[in-house]
């Protein structure tokens, strides 16, 4: 033990500033902190309880996804897109399939279009229920909302397992349609799950939306103004919670979304409570889409006339989808071979994370955890 360390240990004292002044406390809410949704670290400088500075540190889950894709065929990197945002494998697949179909135009049959919308909206339900459950868990509600949310998520994951064979890593979409059709009886089971879902939403809203403690802990916490959100490139429910009307399903009208009548909920204050409520309301809109899609889905093939070997001509494209976390985009450069020259993913939760410091400064450390919960990040997508 060097002399310096000995004296430091000997004169160890908590309080560095004289008298009433308390020093700045450096805290690193480490990669494996119980409430950071995966391996994500926040270096927070505290003055007493309030956050003075916050530096998000991530990269612990970086798997070199984009460089890997350059060495494999187009189809081979489809299963890897499941691992991006491991809560919504279907929407990840769809974004990649959409981008690839722009490289080599393949006509997608009607039934596949309907099934794509159904799968995407079911994933949105899964993501928003889990998010609301985790958010309440950060607030301290000891597991009850989370377990109610997971009870519903289990039913939808069973549907995914029956359709694609796996609960979370579905790898179900292909360029030009879907890998296989849903087994018979699946649509009836899906109809049953969709009909039972509003009961869960009412129960959830009755349990939490007027709860005074939730109101006190989330309102006016982590306020993000509309202009600031647009400036930072925020997309998805976080942007709509700040009052900006931007939903890719309405803007791009990709897939067959223009056939379904659904509305886009908009927040006013842009604080944690709005982000929490927007996701609850979006679930109700998704239920409307699912009702309509399940009602008039036609029969027929689910796979278009995709070529045997996917070898697009030299070109570049950017396909994007409204994933539950925001605008998930795939930027592909094809050079005429079977392997993409460049494969870039626009991860919505990574970009939504950039404003974390502006939201947290001035709040207490307990609020910083709640704000992180409301931003809804998944480290698979943040680190790629």
């Amino acid at each position, binding site marked *: 033990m060097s002399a310096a360390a000995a004296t430091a240990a*000997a*004169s*160890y*004292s*908590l*309080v560095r*500033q*004289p*008298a*009433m002044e308390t*020093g*700045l406390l450096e805290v690193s809410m480490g990669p494996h902190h119980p409430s950071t949704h995966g391996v994500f670290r926040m270096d927070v400088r505290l*003055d*007493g309880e*309030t956050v*003075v*500075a916050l530096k998000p540190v991530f990269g612990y889950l970086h798997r070199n996804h984009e460089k890997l894709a350059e060495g494999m065929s187009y189809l081979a990197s489809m299963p890897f897109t499941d691992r991006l945002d491991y809560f919504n494998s279907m929407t990840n697949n769809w974004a990649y399939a959409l981008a690839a179909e722009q490289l080599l135009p393949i006509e997608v049959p009607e039934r596949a279009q309907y099934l794509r919308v159904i799968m995407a909206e079911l994933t949105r339900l899964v993501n928003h229920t889990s998010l609301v459950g985790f958010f309440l868990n950060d607030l301290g509600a000891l597991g009850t909302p989370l377990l109610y949310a997971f009870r519903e998520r289990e039913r939808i994951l069973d549907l995914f397992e029956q359709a694609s064979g796996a609960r979370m890593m579905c790898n179900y979409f292909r360029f030009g349609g879907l890998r296989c059709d849903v087994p018979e009886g699946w649509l009836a089971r899906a109809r049953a799950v969709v009909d039972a879902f509003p009961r869960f939403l009412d129960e959830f809203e009755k349990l939490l939306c007027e709860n005074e403690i939730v109101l006190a802990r989330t309102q006016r916490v982590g306020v993000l103004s509309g202009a600031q959100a647009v400036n930072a490139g925020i997309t998805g429910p976080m942007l709509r919670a700040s009052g900006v009307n931007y939903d890719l399903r309405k803007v791009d009208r990709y897939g067959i979304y223009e056939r379904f009548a659904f509305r886009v909920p908009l927040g006013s204050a842009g604080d944690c409570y709005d982000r929490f409520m927007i996701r609850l309301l979006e679930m109700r809109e998704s239920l409307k889409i699912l009702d309509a899609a399940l009602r008039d889905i036609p029969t027929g093939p689910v796979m278009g006339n995709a070529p045997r070997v996917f070898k697009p001509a030299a070109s570049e494209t950017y396909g994007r989808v409204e994933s539950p976390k925001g605008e998930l985009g795939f930027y592909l450069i094809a050079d005429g071979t079977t392997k993409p020259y460049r494969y870039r993913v626009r991860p919505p939760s990574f970009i939504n994370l950039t404003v974390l410091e502006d939201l947290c*400064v*001035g709040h207490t450390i307990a609020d910083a955890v709640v704000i992180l919960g409301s931003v809804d990040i998944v480290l698979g997508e943040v680190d790629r």
Partner: protein
Amino acid sequence: MIEGVAFYILSTVAVLGALLAVSRRNLVHGVFALLLFFAALSGLFVMLMADYVAAVQVLVYVGAVGILQLFAIMLTEHVTGDDLRRLGARGWFWGLMLAVALPVVLLLPPLLNGEPPVPPAAPQSTARQLGSQLMEHYVVPLEVLALLLTGALIGAVAVAHGPEKDPPGKDRPA
């Protein structure tokens, strides 16, 4: 007979607590020893059949005053007594002399001329009597005391508040 044994136990604990409170270098240990002394004192009150005072002693001294001192220690710097600074104990001899002389002077006369004072048989419920006394006979001093304490409280808060701190958002020198 049981009272005698209890008395001796309690008084030794009290004296020990007081001695520890004075001699310990680590201030936190000192405060805890002091609290031990207060607790032993309240035990003595129970033996004097003044159970109300004993309960108040525990509530006020051990519960409130002790915590206050610990808070004070936490907020001041370098008092945790780990470093080796030590006040030179110069006047320990005269202190000892005084400590021996005082009890002798106080206790000698009664001991000489007869039996030790018998504790008076206190009436059964002291709380009711104290309450009525406070409210009827001593109501004016009670109110004055209350005002004094509130004044002291407000003064303490004003002093402790210190200069208006600048908003936490601005970066501060570490």
